[in-house]
Every structure is written in C-alpha cells, then in structure tokens.
C-alpha cells in the first residue's frame, strides 16, 4: 500500500506542470505501470448492446473542493443512442444523484448499490490510490449492472448520465431539483405507514423478504470470517518471513546441515510469498465484491419495503372505503337517533336533513375513495409484478456472482497451496540427500 501511495504522491508533484485541460486537473492516470488498473479496455468478446467502461480517475483541485472524477466510456448498438461511442467524465456525487433518481422512480426495482461513502472511521486518505481503485471498480460494476438491467438501462436519466456534456448534464440535473422535496415527503409518509403492518401480505413476498434477510446475514457473517482469517493470515505470513533469518543464524554453526536449513528457509520464504498473494487478492476479489452484495441485499430490502408500502397504501384506502360503505348501509337500515354524534353537531337541523346530508357526503367520499383504491391497487399490482420480475432476475445474477466470488476464493487458495507444495517438494530432496551422504 505505502509504496503505491508514495508513487502516487511522487507523480502528483511531477505532473503538476503538465496538467491537462485546465489548471485544476491532475492526471492520476499518467502514473507509470498503473496500466490495466487505471486504464481499462472493452472486452472484445462482449456482445451486450450496451457496455460501459469506467477508468482513468483524475484528481481535481479547485479553490472550493478537491474531488476525483472518472471517465465513463459507453459503447452501444441500441437505436435509442445517436452515436455508438460516448466518453464523459463523472464524479461520485453524479453517481449518487443517478442512483437516488432511479430508486425514486423505480421504488420496487432492485437498484444496484453504490460503493459506500468514505467513512470517517476508516481513517484512510480519500485520495489514496487503493481507495480510488477499489471505488472505481465498484462504480464500474454499478454502471454495468444498470446497463444489463432490462428496465433501468432504458431510463432517460441513465442515458443522460452516459452521454450528456457537463453543461447539458448539470441543467438536466437541475430540472429534477424538485424531486428531492417530494422524496422527503414520501419518506415521512412511509414512516407513518411503517407503523402499520400490512394484513394481506402474501406468502410469496413474505418468503422473499425472509430470504433476503437471511442471505444478508450470511453474507455479513462471511465478511466477518474473512476479515478474521485475513488478520491471522497476515500475522502468519509475517512470522513465516522470520524463519529464514533464524535458520541462517543457525546454519553458520552446522556445516553438515547448512544446505538443508537453507532449503527450508527458502521454502518458507516462497510460502510467505504465496500467502502474501492470497492476502493481497483477498480484498479486491473477495471482500469488496462480497461487501457489494451485502449492500445489494440492502437494496433488495428497500424495494421489498417499498412494495409493502404500496400494499399498505392500498389496504388503508380499502379499509376506509369499507368504513364508508358500512356507514352507508347502516344509515339506510337504521336511521336517525342511532347517530348521537351527528345529533350534537347539527342541533338546529332536522334529523332527516342531517341524514340526507350525511348520505350525500358519504356518497361522494365513497366514489373518490373507490377511485383511490383503484389507483392504489393498480400501483400495488404494478409493484408486485415489477418486484417479482426483478427479484427473479436479481436472483439469477446473484447466484452467478456469488458463485464467481466463491470460485475465485477457491482458485486463490488452490494457487497458494500449489506454490507452497512446490516449494516444500523442492526443499525435501535437498534436506534428505544430505542425510544419505552423512550415513
């Protein structure tokens, strides 16, 4: 890590005089041997009609703020796009905006998660090379998950995000400024509704949400286990590196054993190297993707919650309608004095009048409520349908992704053990040969 960041800092100074475009941009990409990490390429074998590539992070320093932007390249054959290739630059807050918009517009779709905001607890440099690389990879995955999504990939905001020039994009963003307020309102409504438990929650969604809860718990446990193993392994490999110096010291006094001791020391170093590789790969190829899935399950939980809210909405409306209907029938069958409440309020009116008025009120109330019920039922059914489809799709993607993560984990271990086995097998004849020579 330190080597990388040193390198970064060094280049940072070197390149200040070579700033591109404006005098506020520094090229992080011009770091030598940054190679495939910082500059990506489209996979030629990729046949998807919409492909997005995120690379070449740049640091921007303005008098007000310092931030990192990433290059978003798009390659597409969809007819909705005028051109086939687009290149734009976007910063993290743009991604955030995009995701917020999408989750507002499609509350019951599982919108892919963004990497978490930089947390103060971690105490790492926000412009640290590893942090940027890891965030860039996650943002890349985010965009491609959107591009692969049948609904989200056709969204206008996503399209604008991919192709708009900076000016276009910022005016486009402003046109949605009101949305924020609306979002907050609906949130408070949601909070109100959350105290209400949907009655007719179907078994299907009950199961889904139970599954998502459990899966997210499993993933979080796996993350924790991984961290603990990582910690132990790091300490282990550090200790393993101590073997050679100790053996070297001993070797000086054991002329007859020296070759064997040397061979063992070398094997230990090779093993330590193999362990080091495993430890280094752990974060980018295991813990980060796993953590992304932990966030993804949160997104799934959100959409499930939104669906529940749609149902609650419908149920509340339905209940009100029922109450009105019940009152109507009651007034029809048992008129007058059964209604003391009405009485008190309308002392000077004749009971008949009151009843008439009330009936009218109920009539109009019932018709508007019936409409609302209709609307909310539609919404709910829409939500159900959306979520059902998206959950199915998400499940498939999830199985594939998790399988890949686990296989990657197995592969890394296999590699590590192959190297270790090799190292020890090489050492054995040297250690043994000597003993034969002795006898």
């Amino acid at each position, binding site marked *: 890590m330190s080597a990388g960041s040193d390198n970064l800092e060094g280049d940072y100074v070197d390149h200040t005089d070579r700033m591109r475009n404006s005098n506020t941009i520094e090229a992080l990409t011009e770091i030598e041997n940054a190679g495939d990490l910082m500059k990506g390429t489209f996979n030629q074998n990729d046949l998807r009609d919409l492909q997005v590539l995120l690379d070449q992070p740049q640091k921007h320093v303005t008098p007000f703020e310092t931030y990192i932007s990433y290059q978003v390249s798009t390659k597409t054959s969809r007819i909705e796009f005028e051109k086939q290739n687009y290149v734009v630059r976007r910063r993290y807050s743009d991604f955030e905006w995009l995701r917020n918009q999408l989750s507002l517009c499609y509350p019951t779709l599982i919108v892919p998660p963004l990497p978490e905001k930089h947390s103060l607890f971690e105490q790492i440099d926000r412009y640290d090379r590893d942090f940027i690389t890891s965030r860039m990879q996650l943002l890349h995955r985010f965009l491609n998950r959107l591009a692969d999504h049948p609904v989200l990939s056709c969204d206008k905001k996503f399209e604008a995000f991919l192709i708009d020039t900076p000016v276009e994009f910022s005016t486009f963003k402003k046109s949605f400024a009101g949305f924020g307020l609306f979002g907050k309102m609906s949130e408070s409504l949601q909070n109100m509704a959350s105290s209400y438990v949907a009655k007719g929650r179907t078994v299907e969604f009950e199961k889904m949400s139970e599954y998502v809860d459990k899966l997210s718990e499993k993933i979080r446990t796996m993350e924790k*286990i991984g961290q603990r193993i990582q910690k*132990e392994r790091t300490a282990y490999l550090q200790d393993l590196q101590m073997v050679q110096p*100790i053996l070297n010291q001993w070797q000086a006094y054991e002329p007859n054993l020296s070759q064997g001791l040397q061979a063992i020391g070398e*094997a230990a170093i090779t093993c330590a190297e193999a362990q080091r590789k495993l430890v280094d790969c752990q974060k980018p190829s295991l813990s980060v993707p796993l953590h992304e899935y932990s966030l993804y399950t949160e997104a799934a939980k959100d959409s499930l919650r939104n669906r529940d809210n749609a149902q609650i909405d419908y149920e509340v409306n339905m209940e009100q309608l029922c109450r009105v209907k019940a009152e109507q029938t009651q007034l029809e069958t048992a008129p007058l004095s059964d209604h003391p409440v009405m009485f008190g309020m309308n002392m000077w009116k004749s009971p008949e009048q009151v009843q008439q008025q009330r009936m009218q009120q109920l009539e109009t109330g019932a018709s508007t409520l019936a409409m609302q019920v209709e609307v909310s039922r539609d919404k709910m059914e829409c939500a159900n349908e959306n979520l059902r489809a998206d959950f199915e799709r998400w499940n498939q993607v999830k*199985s594939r992704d998790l399988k890949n993560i686990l296989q990657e984990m197995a592969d890394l271990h296999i590699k590590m053990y*192959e190297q270790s*086995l090799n190292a*020890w097998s090489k050492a054995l004849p040297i250690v043994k040969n000597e003993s034969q020579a002795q006898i």
Partner: protein
Amino acid sequence: MQSSSSNIVSNNWEEVDSKEIKNLVTETNGKKENILIGKEDVLLHHLDISIVEAEKRINGPLTLKEYYSVYLIETKAIDKNWREGLSPTGSVWRRYSEFELLRFQLENKYPEAIIPPLPEKKASFTRQSQSSDNIDPVFVDRRRVGLENFLLRVAAHPILCHDQVLLKFLQSDREWSDLDVNADGGKYVQQAEFKLKSISTALRLKKPDDHMEEIRHYSSELQSSLGNLLRLRVRLADRLFAIHKLHANYGRVFSEWSALEKTMGDGLQKAGHYMDCYAAAIDAHMEEEDIVADQLKEYLFFGNALQGLSSRHQMAQLEVEKAESHLNLQQYNKSRSLGQDGYLTKLWGKWTGTTETPDDRQAKIETIERNIDEAQVLVQTASTQLSQFSKQAVNEVERFHQHKNANLQESLANYVILQMKLSKMGLQTWKHVKEALEDLP
C-alpha cells in the same frame, strides 16, 4: 489440545488419536535405528528397551494429594552375551524423579561423557490449544516417548551402557541406586554445589582450552537458535491452527446458507462439508508437528548436556592449574630459602638475633623439596587426567555431532514432509470446494 478439538470436531477425535499413536510408534522405531549409528558393541544390541505405559498415581494423605506419573519400562534380552548379565525380561515402574536421579549419577560417574538430556519436566513452547498441565495425558504420553528416547540413547552410548546402576534401573525391581531415592535433600545440595563450582571455574581459569571454549560457544548457539526456532514454530502453529479453525465458520455459514437456496443448496452443502474437513485436519497435523518440535527440543536440551561436559572439563583443568600454582609456590619458597645465603639476609639475621642454624635451614629445604615432589606428582596426575578427559571429550563431541546431524536431518525432513502433506491437504480440499461450486447453476 483435546479440549478444543473435541469441542469443534468431536467425531474426528478418535481418528486423530489412533493416528497419533501410530505415528509415535513409527517415530520411535526410526529413532532406534538412528541411535545405533556407531559400530560399538552396546547394550542396545542385546536388550530391547521400551516404555510401554504411563500411569497416574496419587501419593500422600487425602488432604495433601500429590499426583505423579509412573512409567513402565519393559526390557527383553535379545541375547545374553553381555558382560554384566541380563535378565531375560524385566518390567519396572519408574517415576520421573528416578530418571533424574539416574541421570545425575551418570553425570557424576562419567564426567567426560555427554549425558543425553531428559525430556522436560514441564511443557514449554506449547501451543495455545495445548494443555500445560503436568498430568495432561497428551503431555504425559509425549514425555513417555522422551524418556524412552533417553534410555535408548544411554543404552546405545559406548561408555554409559556398561553402567551397573543403569542395568539395575532397567531391570531390577528395587534398590537400583546407591543413593537413596527419597533423600532428595542430599541430592539437590550436591547438585547445587556442583553448579556453583562450575560457574565459578569459568572465571578462575587462567588458560581456557580452545576446543572446549568452542564447544561451549557452539552449545550456546545451538540453544539460542533452537530456542528461537521453537518459539517461532509455536507462533506459526498457533496462527495456522487459528486460520484452519476459522474455516469451520465458513462451513457453518455454507451449510446454513444451503438450507436457504433451492438450486445452490447441494453445492453449498458440499463446500461447507469440505470447509469443516479443512478445519478438522489441522488437529492431526499439529500433533505430528509437535512430535518434530519435541525432537528439536531434545537437541535444545542437549545444549545443556554439552555445557555440562565443558563445565566438568573446566573443573578438571582447574585441578591442574591449582596443582601447578601450588608447585610454583613451593618452588618459589625453595628459591627464597636458598637465596638466604646472601649478605643482607645474614645481616638482618644477626641484627634481629634470629639467625638460623645451617641444620635448620637444611631441614627446611628438605621439606620444601619433598613438597615440590608431591606437588609435581599432583600436577602429573591432574594433567594426565585432564588429557584423558580431553581425549574422551573430543570423541564424545565427535559422536554427538554425528548423531545430531543424522537426527536433526531426519527431523527437518519430517518437518518438510509434514508441510507438504498439509499443502496437499489444502490443495485437495480447495479443489473439492471448487468442484462442488461448479455444480452450482
């Protein structure tokens, strides 16, 4: 060891146990061959020695219970062509302190020999999961192996194997020692005296022997290197143990997870099973690695034995130097007495009125000369003793190195083999995991 492993993989415990025993057996067989490198005719050629069993006993009244372990030594004569005469079979119970006493006697009787070390009284360099309890069965069993090893080494030693006390220790039911076993006080005083002497001799020696200094130096290097190595080994073992055991958590998560999934269930279940195996396999590995560590530890203690030898050599040398300085003193006295013919002395004598008669002087000189003769004899015997000691010590050291090289080589090779086995196991496990995962949709 037992407690932690039985918690996690109780079903695997028996398997581990039997494997361990099997391993110990092969280990000791290997040792016997290794110990017999020389061509000398030694007791071990004529007598089969093994410690077959250890038993826990309780001593003292109920309120003051003292637990100790006794070891059953079984001997069987292969042939009877041995000077001291062997019983065809023997089986005796001895406790650790008796071994200590035997070793102490051998040390006193044969100062010029490197007396093989005893296994440790209390477990050192232990892993976290090991019990440091003195009567822990695993520890007692490892000590049994160590004590047997000690007997084998003594019986294979060209000098020590002829000792009568040793034979009695191995075969006769009681009264094997000249010293009283229970007179612990005397023994320890003697030992303490011996230690004190050897510490101070190093300071008093005028002309340390180069060869012995080298041995001293070597032994301290051996001790520090092996000490460092063993300490590191324990740390590595603890870490590795933890890493493997943590994988059991993956096993748990996988199998719980498999219950959630319809299509992934089977593969996850399998993968979880392999993770459990991965965690369980470390127990057996560590047991085997502990045996190798014990072998290295023996040589760590051999360092002490070497130092004992060098201390005893220093004492022998001190004897010579003492005799020499005594001789020098006598010779100086003589020259002073002869020098009294001088004028000044006479004057001094006259003036003080203490003039010696010539007869007196003659007598004095004669005594001095007698003393000189005696001192010369003393110097002579001490020197011959020292040179004999040195010669034998050189042989001993030579022999030690030969055995050490062979034994350590074997231990190191075993260590490497163990690491290979572990790597193979890991490789196999993760390959299985990968296969299981490939079955996933």
